[in-house]
């Protein structure tokens, strides 16, 4: 019984993680410039990875492996935003112009 509950939970988590990764990918393909693409990819990647790791934690139960997975997620939580920040800084210092929406003068 408990095994089935864990299985269902891990399926839901992994599917949720896949959904967020897909949303992030669509965002990267459709967004107009570097900064908006970074915003889409950076946030959804961290969240999607978190859900995937949560799904894996449900599969491994309550062992040392779960602790390792959570440590991996802790480091991902630390480094993914820093990486996005570094990319955005590099784009800014490379003088990439942000996309500006065209507002009709009224």
């Amino acid at each position: 019984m408990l095994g089935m509950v864990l299985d269902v939970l891990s399926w839901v988590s992994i599917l949720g993680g896949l959904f967020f990764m897909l949303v992030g990918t669509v965002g990267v393909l459709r967004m107009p410039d570097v900064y908006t693409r970074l915003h889409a990819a950076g946030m959804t990647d961290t969240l999607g990875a978190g859900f995937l790791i949560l799904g894996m934690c449900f599969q491994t139960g309550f062992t040392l492996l779960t602790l390792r997975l959570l440590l991996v997620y802790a480091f991902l939580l630390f480094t993914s935003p820093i990486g996005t920040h570094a990319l955005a800084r590099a784009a800014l210092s490379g003088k990439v112009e942000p996309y500006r929406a065209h507002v009709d003068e009224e």
Partner: protein
Amino acid sequence: MDDRVILRIGTKFLIPFILLFALYVQFHGDYGPGGGFQAGVIFAAAFVLYALVYGLGRAKEVLPPGFVHTCSALGVMIYAGTGVVTMLKGGLFLDYNVLLHDPHHGQHWGIFSVEFGVLVTVFGVMVSIFYAFAGRRRREG
């Protein structure tokens, strides 16, 4: 205030863990995936990260190029040296059984020492190649 604060603090937090992970991979090569090559690369990656965030000058003060060139040769010497030690103890080249009082312990310590040699060489080579490439600019014209 220097506006690279986030990168610097993030790096300061991460580098000890990267080095620790490299040592973990090295010593757990006996029980799981790992060993000298992976550990050497991860160890070098920590120093490359330091050089990228804090600058090449400071990285070269921490880890002088002469030292890493020496490291890369030292690792090969450690490896071959293990073989010479086994020969001096009466066995063939790289025959770990004669290293210690017991073949099992001999194998264990022999593998440990050659993997350590591999770690040192791979670390030295990766950092040296990074130093050779980094900081160069294209000559105009």
